[in-house]
């Protein structure tokens, strides 16, 4: 059964990202002019201003760079507390907020190798696949 989650950002660019997730891929913007990979989705390159950004698949591999656990509830009944969140440095560079799969924050280690996995979720916009990270 799909997990209920707070809403995604939708619209041009954002939809492309979520479509990729639906196909089991993380697709991120890449700037052909300067090589930068912005995240979250932007309308023009935050490094050089180029508007030629293109979505490309990234490997889905990375390492754990930090983590935190919500003890205060910010989403009411939607999400239980304590609630683990992590931030992953993707091999391609961007720092990506996510959730741990197959480990808890109590077991987290700086630099842990991680790989993406997709979780069936649902929000007010409908069903979607959420990228989460498990030990590689």
């Amino acid at each position, binding site marked *: 059964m799909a997990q209920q989650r707070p809403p995604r950002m939708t619209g041009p660019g954002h939809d492309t990202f979520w479509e990729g997730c639906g196909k089991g891929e993380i697709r991120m913007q890449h700037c052909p002019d300067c090589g930068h990979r912005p995240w979250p989705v932007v309308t023009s390159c935050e490094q050089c201003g180029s508007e030629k950004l293109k979505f490309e698949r990234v490997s889905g591999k990375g390492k754990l760079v930090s983590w935190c656990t919500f*003890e205060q509830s910010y989403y009411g009944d939607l999400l239980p507390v304590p609630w683990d*969140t992590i931030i992953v440095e993707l091999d391609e560079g961007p720092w990506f907020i996510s959730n741990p799969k197959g480990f808890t924050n109590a077991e987290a280690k700086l630099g842990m190798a991680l790989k993406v996995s997709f979780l069936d979720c649902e929000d007010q916009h409908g069903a979607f696949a959420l990228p989460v990270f498990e030990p590689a």
Partner: protein
Amino acid sequence: MAIWEGIITGMAQAGFVDMPPSVQEASRKVSIVGIGESDFHLDYRAERERADGWEPRTVEDMCKKAFERALADSGLKRSDIDGLAMSYTYGGPEPSEMATHFGIQPKLGWINGHIFAGPLPNAAGRIMAGDAEVIALVFGIANRSAGRQFGGMTFASGAAGPSSYYYHHPWGWSSQAAHWALMAQRYFAKYGKGEEDLGHVPMTVRKHAATDPNAVMQKPFTIDEYMASRYIVRPLHLFDICLVTDGAVCVIISEADRARDMAKVPVDVAGWGHSLITQDKMKVMIEDRLRPQLQDAGGQALRMAGLSIDDIGHFEGYDASSIHLVNQVEGFGFTEPGTGLDFCIDGQMTLGGRIPTNMNGGNMSYSYMQGWGQVPEIVRQLRHEAGPRQIEGLQASMSALTQTDIVHPVVYTRGD
């Protein structure tokens, strides 16, 4: 007059006020001559207790209280105030209405952004441009009475503001506190520190607040009490996070030469700086802890003032969280990266140490005035009127409004 034109251009934006250029020609041209605050402590207690007949404080009334106190502090007459700059974070009356409320007839009045520090140099620019001689800058906020929260769906998808506030809802990651929690966890893992080390920062700041009768939270706590306090976003405890408070601050500024003839020792606005994260915000925040921006903006403010970091004897930093105060103490160069917690434990951030920091209790204990609360403490310290928490022989102080992506330091010097 290109300098002043540049300074005034910064005001053109509605809402957030950019810093004007940091140029030496604008250093020490304007002085702070009066300060006033509303009743942070009393108003907070009354709001918590909500006795029969209690009503929330209005922005107007808190601003009036701060203004009257600043006017009395300056020794000026109402008729001396010929400029009024109002700053509100969540809105407030027009300057003309507030002028009537204050009983003044300024020839210049405008809405001067909201959070510190941009409004101060922008108002200074108006004095340098000859638009007014004495300006009352008044900031008011009814954060608490408005039930303001800083996380969850209060920042909905697509709302204005930094994307880090709302973009990560599907992963259940939100809130201002969560930014600081990721920073603290990485700091601990990278430098081999822990919560019991970090706890010394809010404990030190609280110890300072205990000497300020207007601070919201004055009761000192021990490390054991810190460790026993509840978590907000682990690894951060309640005591690591700033307050949510109502209040107002008034700062009266004057042309520097004229300030020499006024009641109190003038405090000169000597330098300011501006730096912004423009890309990879999460990485710059969590990995670099804004060091590039702190170095950049701090360097601008110090060069403008003709000083080095070694000349600064007092710092009022933006302690939205304890770890963020450490970011600033390290990032500006008071101590090396990764040494901030030992520096604090060693007493270097309190009286008798290298850089007494947040001497009135800051955002975590005094009041959350979005940076404006830094000014009254700097003025008291530089006038040598800070009583039991006075830093001996102080000549130069620095404040910094440092959010998740913006750094706005100001350098001040004693003007006698």
